[in-house]
């Protein structure tokens, strides 16, 4: 019997309205180590959008664990859980408290103490050795899980999800990579997990107990594999209502929530295999699938299989909190797509950025940006002044869409024959095709909202009438490549966007990347794929330094290495001379000449130097070329301020 994504389901003794889960993730919304008003608004918005089950950000069950500065501490979360449940339950949602301990994957920066671990295996990032847990620490951990679950359920949570997935001490006990103990907890690596589940079940009554479990550590020499996971879970799921399967280990943190280089639903086969293995051994908990599930069709397909009962659509609902509501009302095609860019939602970052989203910059800012949330609020139509938007890239399309939704009659002018601007170009780079989904969506929605779109229509200041609302979103332009010691013209210089758009690359290519983002790496990969002998010059010590934020740093370095791209670090081009790019080491000032036929400038762009009437509002890259998020945000702001009664 197949089931639908929006069919109700019983999770343990509770009823969930549908199969969609908003999974636990780092938000940095915390106030100290407590859950904040920001958390409440963030989860409430997803509950309001129809998500049936929400798991709150993982809270540390013991004070020895402080994995990142704003990591919630369960003993400080009582009020927060109360407020979240009170905000979400009126929408019919279940709220589960994420509970965990990061163990040797944590940090001592804030505790100024030791990491806890099953065995003496150093933290991969800091190389710090942990404290090998003794009986006392093990007992404190088990008691911490039980005490935390008690707090959560007392405050109205419908249950808890215990983290034995990424960043978890429970997984570290389950894994041969990290558990080298000779005692009972080493001989039977699932023993601690069972102890914790038993202790939690004993205190939560009939509330939901879920387990987030690792199905593949991607380290087959000693780590958890699908087969090992099945063995570990056999007999360990008594008292567990559902298991959510994730992947990744100490050596592959980025693999748990990868960007668009990895296909959607990458855990599907292993999850199904495990689900079937569990069912062979008797009554089995529900199975929740996780792993870049962002499209409704994908989620529906998964739930239609017998193996999978629930699907975690976390990034999809960061991007569109109304995903469920839209789907249920037959408007699934209008869901704002997650583009799997990971640029603003992966926030386990020392700078504590607040979780947000390129395509939905209101995410994480639900309280202060409530007035910009035009997707749900009904706005008066018909009395708004007409608006002209110049430029059909992301900023222009979003401004036009939002203005039209707010009741303005909008005409959008785009000088090219296609819409989407720089995002369309970026989507042509290897592994970035998903970016195009945003341009497609904006274009569809603009049409749907009634925007009049004029392509191949170049507009200048003189064409703009005074009384209309004018929004200028004409984007950026390539900066002139500045070479301190000159350019004899012996190497063809191209800008990255023209290369992405198809400018010919062949022979010997040098890519200049002072940014370290996706573009320089993508252009180098593209050149290598086209058969060019490729060298990437980066001003940073490592290639793609900015990709650590999206989790693609190590993978990008691996792809470049496998493609044979040569890399020169902490360097910059100072001249083009006699068929070579002259490259200077920023540390030693030593120079090398790299022969080249084509030199691609993947550096920063500049705003187009054009003059507009004082009444025009300039947004996006036309102000300063930045990312998608600022373009989307500035567009939304200008639309909402234009629609304000004061205008």
């Amino acid at each position, binding site marked *: 019997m197949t089931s639908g994504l929006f069919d109700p389901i019983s999770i343990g003794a509770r009823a969930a309205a549908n199969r969609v889960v908003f999974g636990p993730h780092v938000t940095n919304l915390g106030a100290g180590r407590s859950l904040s008003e920001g958390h409440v608004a963030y989860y409430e918005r997803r509950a309001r959008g129809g998500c049936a089950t929400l798991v709150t950000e993982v809270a540390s069950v013991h004070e020895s664990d402080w994995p990142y500065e704003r990591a919630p501490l369960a003993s400080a979360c009582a009020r927060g859980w109360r407020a979240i449940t009170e905000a979400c339950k009126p929408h019919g949602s279940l709220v589960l408290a994420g509970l965990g301990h990061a163990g040797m994957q944590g940090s001592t920066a804030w505790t100024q103490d030791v990491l806890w671990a099953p065995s003496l295996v150093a933290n991969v990032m800091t190389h710090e050795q942990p404290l090998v847990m003794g009986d006392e620490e093990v007992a404190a951990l088990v008691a911490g899980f039980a005490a935390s679950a008690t707090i959560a359920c007392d405050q109205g949570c419908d249950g808890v999800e215990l983290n034995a997935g990424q960043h978890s001490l429970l997984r570290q006990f389950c894994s041969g990579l990290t558990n080298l103990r000779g005692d009972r907890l080493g001989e039977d690596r699932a023993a601690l997990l069972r102890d914790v589940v038993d202790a939690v079940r004993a205190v939560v009554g009939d509330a939901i107990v879920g387990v987030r479990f690792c199905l593949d550590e991607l380290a087959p020499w000693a780590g958890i594999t699908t087969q090992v996971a099945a063995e570990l879970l056999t007999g360990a799921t008594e008292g567990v209502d559902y298991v959510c399967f994730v992947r990744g280990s100490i050596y592959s943190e980025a693999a748990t929530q990868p960007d668009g280089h990895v296909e959607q639903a990458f855990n599907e086969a292993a999850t199904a295999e495990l689900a079937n293995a569990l069912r062979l051994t008797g009554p089995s908990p529900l199975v929740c699938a996780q792993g870049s599930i962002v499209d409704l069709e994908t989620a529906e397909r998964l739930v239609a299989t017998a193996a999978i009962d629930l699907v975690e659509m976390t990034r999809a609902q960061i991007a569109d909190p109304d995903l469920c509501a839209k789907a249920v009302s037959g408007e699934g095609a209008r869901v704002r797509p997650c583009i799997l860019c990971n640029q603003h939602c992966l926030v386990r970052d020392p700078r504590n950025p607040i979780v947000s989203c390129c395509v939905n910059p209101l995410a994480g800012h639900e309280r202060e940006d409530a007035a910009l949330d035009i997707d749900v609020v009904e706005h008066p139509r018909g009395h708004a002044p007409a608006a002209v938007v110049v430029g059909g890239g992301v900023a222009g399309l979003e401004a036009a869409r939002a203005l039209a939704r707010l009741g303005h009659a909008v005409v959008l002018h785009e000088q090219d024959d296609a819409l989407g601007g720089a995002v369309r170009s970026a989507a042509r780079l290897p592994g970035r095709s998903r970016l195009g989904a945003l341009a497609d969506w904006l274009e569809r929605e603009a049409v749907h909202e009634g925007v009049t779109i004029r392509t191949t229509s170049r507009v200048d200041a003189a064409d703009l009438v005074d009384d209309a609302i004018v929004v200028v979103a004409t984007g950026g332009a390539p900066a002139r490549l500045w070479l301190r010691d000159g350019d004899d013209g012996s190497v063809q210089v191209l800008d990255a966007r023209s290369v992405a758009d198809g400018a010919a690359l062949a022979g010997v290519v040098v890519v200049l990347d002072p940014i370290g983002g996706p573009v320089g790496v993508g252009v180098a990969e593209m050149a290598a794929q086209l058969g060019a002998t490729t060298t990437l010059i980066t001003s940073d010590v490592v290639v793609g330094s*900015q990709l650590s934020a999206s989790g693609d740093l190590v993978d990008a370095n691996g792809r470049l290495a496998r493609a044979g791209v040569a890399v020169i670090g902490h360097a910059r081009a100072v001249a083009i001379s006699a068929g070579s790019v002259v490259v200077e080491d920023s540390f030693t000032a030593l120079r090398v000449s790299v022969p080249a036929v084509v030199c691609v400038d993947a550096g920063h762009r*500049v705003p187009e130097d054009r003059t507009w009437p004082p009444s025009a509002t300039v947004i996006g890259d036309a102000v300063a070329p930045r990312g998608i998020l600022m373009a989307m945000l500035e567009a939304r702001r200008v639309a909402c301020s234009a629609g304000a009664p004061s205008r």
Partner: protein
Amino acid sequence: MTSTSRLELLFKPLSVGPLRLANRIVFSAHLTNYAVDGLPSAQHAAYYAARARGGAGLIVTEEHSTHPTDWPYEKLIHGFNPEVLPGYRRITDAVHAYGTPILAQLNHNGGQASSMYSRLAVWAPSPIADPLFKEVPKAVDDEEIASIVAGYADVAARCIEGGFDGVELQCSHSSIVRAFLSSATNRRADRWGGSLENRARLLLALVDAVRTAIGPDKALGVRLCGDELLDGGTTIDEAVEVAVMVEATGSVDYLNTSIGVATSSLFAIEASMAVRPGYALFIPSAIRRRVGLPVVGVGRFKDPVQADRALTEGHCDLVGVVRGQIADADFARKARSGHTERVRLCLSCNQECVGRMGLNRWLGCIENARTGRESEPAAPRARRPRTVVVVGAGPAGLQVAVTAAERGHRVVILEREAEPGGQVALAARVPGRAEFGDLVRNLLSELRALGVEVTQGVDATVELVASFSPDAVVVATGSTPASPWWGADVPDGAPQLLDVTDVLRGTAVEGRAVLVVDELGFHQATSVAELLADRGHAVEIASPSLVVGQDLGVTLDLEQFWVRATAKGIVQTTSTMVTGLRRGAADIQHVLTGVSGSRDVDAVVLALPAIPNDALAEGCRVRGFDVHTVGDARAPRRAHAAIVDGTRVGSAL
């Protein structure tokens, strides 16, 4: 040296505008990350008050942002938010209790910022992305420049209302004023760009507006960069010309100086021990020759004697001592009372001060666990003196002994080696890392003052410990180098296999070609590699990480390591691990591609996470003693963890 006679100038009072400074020691502006939600905290007040109590002549707080477009890092004081006022008063009241003047530094970081926190475009003279933040700024127009100037005036007035004795304008390091002054970042063709006069227009407008805002009776300082170390950037000649312009306004009371730009040449601003002290003195020296205003010199002043020499040699009128007073809040008081040897000298290791700033953590100090925690109560004296036996005289053991003895306990320290200091003493044997050894020197000097002796050359057994009838035993026995996972399968004829600590202890390294394995990402591998290269070995460092010595970047040691390593012919191989040894070679594998290879080498030197030596703890526990394990014996970590462990246990005994 026990006399202040050699520190005559350092303690000679000086008038700076309306202020009378008791001495020439300035606690210059530096980030602390103590702000909470953009507001100054109780920790700020306690931190500055501790340095006032310790005798600093002048304190300049960290920067206060003058405009909502300026929010480059999370824990910045939002001076533009009127809610800062109570926090201002808390700071100034706490500092004034010691009679010490305190100024607020005002700043707008300009394009050396991102929109991450502000969710606004960043502002700068020209749309040139900063090399660290990598975000293209908006080139400001006249209206926006007027708004910047108004912001400075507004915040300056608020600072005076909050009790500050004046303000300092940050025009160096990371600042929109710096960006306007520098041809590297100001490409404007209007009246704000081009000639030096045009580029200085914003600075002079700010001086004018701020002086008007603070009135004639408060101090106004300007901090200028003498050399940006940037292509096309400000160098000393232009800096001197700007200083002359600033003096000519008649509105400014002193000039502070700096070197480097925070987001591209930070290693020069907060130089590590690899750079000689006083390296930036040419800047105040040059400025002082042309202007009459008091000039502050900065740049790794860690010793009162050396600070005094900068004054007597005429380079400057005041000396900025920042890290020296982070390490020891009583730097000035100890020097003045003739106890320069008691000053806890800064190591210039940059591990917990500079190193924590870029990571968005609160400012601390590797050798002073109180730094950053001043607002918390200090451990009280012990109610009942106990006999404490500390086994091991590395940093953890020495720190336990200091803290416990300060609290009134009787302390016995037993050390197996002939010299105290543990791995810190070993690490300091490498040329260029000698100042790291000051950590041990400082602790021993404290112990000497407390009358605690270290018994050296004894292998502590449970029986020996028991012979002291201890009330508490602290096991600080350190760690042992680990064997690699392939260590059991080393065949005959394989390269010599040894640990970095073996090399530092004097084991001879065989042959010429050496492969150093860096699995710690810090100085262990890189410094020993340099040592071996200096001895004539051909050295390659292999690291499984993307960078050899990855954390050298955090402490600002990476650039210069790279320069030295290049000169010494050291090869750096990244993303590579050693998978075993065979006759005359090491097998390696590239961790990203899986491609295997080998290196023909004579020796392999390992820097691996170590194994705790905790056997004694178990033995003592069995005997029923109150046992505490600290430092590497608890879990092998860096020196700071040993100091924190030692302080924590010493405070709890």
